[in-house]
């Protein structure tokens, strides 16, 4: 386990800012204690100082997970968000997409959101903007990338993709063994 380098921090913040914008500040600077990002086994974990100190007792090769996994760095140095980060991204999300109950299951199986399944979308969403996907009952389901702007969404035919799937809570079951 080690702190992120400047470069890694920047890569991760750039990815996070696609979803929660400047609200990252609220994750870094929390009033309820010191929280930090740590890298272990190419994965970034978000944890409190207290948990970190406890985790130092466990040797590096034995440590499977600590705190909340935000995502991992790929071999090419890109940052990929994991669904486990949803708990922290959903409250601060700037752009949201609501999915109709009928399309909910399809999204949770890892499919893109079609226009026919689109319930609501935050106004002013740009193309390729990171969005958090909610069910109509305001339950966060995952996150994706807007394939179309809000304006374009009005015009396209119902079978075209509106939100590209990135991660959904179905992964907790599908990728149970690799998700940490």
């Amino acid at each position, binding site marked *: 386990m080690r*702190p992120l380098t400047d470069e890694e921090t920047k890569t991760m913040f750039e990815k996070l800012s696609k979803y929660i914008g400047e609200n990252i500040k609220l994750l870094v600077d929390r009033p309820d204690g010191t929280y930090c990002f740590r890298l272990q086994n190419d994965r970034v974990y978000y944890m409190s*100082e207290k948990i970190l100190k406890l985790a130092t007792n466990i040797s590096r090769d034995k440590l499977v997970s600590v705190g909340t996994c935000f995502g991992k760095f790929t071999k090419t140095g890109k940052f990929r968000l994991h669904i486990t980060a949803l708990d922290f991204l959903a409250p*601060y999300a700037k752009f*949201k997409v*609501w999915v109709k109950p009928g399309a909910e299951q399809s999204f949770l199986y890892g499919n893109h959101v079609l226009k026919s399944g689109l319930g*609501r979308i935050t106004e002013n969403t740009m193309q390729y903007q990171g969005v958090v996907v909610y069910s109509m009952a305001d339950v966060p389901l995952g996150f994706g990338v807007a394939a179309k702007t809000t304006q374009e969404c009005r015009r396209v035919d119902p079978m075209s993709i509106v939100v590209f799937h990135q991660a959904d809570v179905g992964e907790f079951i599908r990728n149970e063994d690799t998700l940490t």
Partner: protein
Amino acid sequence: MAACSVEELLAKAEREEAEKLKSITVHKELDVEFDIGNLLACDKNRIESRDFRGQKKEDFLRSLARDNTQLLVNEIWKQPTERVEEAIVVKLPDSLTPLPREKPPPKPRPPTKWEEFAKLKGIQKKKKTNLVWDETAKEWRRRWGYKRAKDDTKEWLIEVPETADPNEDQFAKRVKAKKERVAKNEFNRLKNIARAQKIKVPGVGLTPTAQQSKDDLSKAVSVAKTSTASVGRFQDRLPKEKPPKNTGKKRKFEPLIGNFSNEKQKQLDMLKLMDSKKPKLDITKAVNKQMREEDREEAAAKYKKGAGKKGRKGNMPGKGKGKGGKGKGGKSGGGKFGGGKPVGGKFGGGKKRGKAGKH
């Protein structure tokens, strides 16, 4: 007086004899254990603590040492003796007590590169017979070395392969190939020795290889660049040239549990910097806004037109005029999104929700 003296003398002689006898026989409660090979005697008898008190201590220790030494000497002379140049000597048997050696045991030879590889792959040595049957000579010959079986250096004729150059000397080619193999083997042997002795293995930098890969080429470029008097400080970079990888720079990380407030401040600074680099004018957003305004105007115009004609029904033909693909839109979700007023309401609601959820 004389008789008395004789008796006395006899008694004295007797006593002396007893004394003498006693001097070589030592009585012990428990037998002393011997390891004659190491000239070692081990006395396991109990020692009374009262023997150690006062003046008697020294005497006691001296007599104990004498007795035990006597026993050891007795034991030694039980061994077979022989005479060597006027001296009687005893040949000591092998020692029974194992003694630790003076120097640490020699380390096993570190495995060669091949041995490491063979172990990894599970390749085991196969024992081959030394002699093989030579069909041409009709006799058993050694597998290799002088007068070996199937000796290809002794062939008087070599067929030129079809693909080969006809003017090439096949004999010379064979000799050259053999020399290359020998040289390569020798080089590998030296590399193994160097690795075993933790000397910097030659061939780490740039050694000639059969085929140079792209990596080798980029390595060669970086080596050539730094081979100036100023260690490449004033060398220009080629356009599109990537910085050399793995130039021996070690990565350094912050401590795991360091200064948390410092770390936080650093991250906040980074966020501020990232924020400042964003363009103030978001073109996409501006375009979207413009488009939305136009949409609204259009919708308003349509509504006005429709209202002037026939009220609500008039909306439909107006929509038909607008854009293609309305047939589809009319069927499903398009009715909600594509149309005039209800859509706005829907989306407006969405926006409100979004804002509310933001905290």
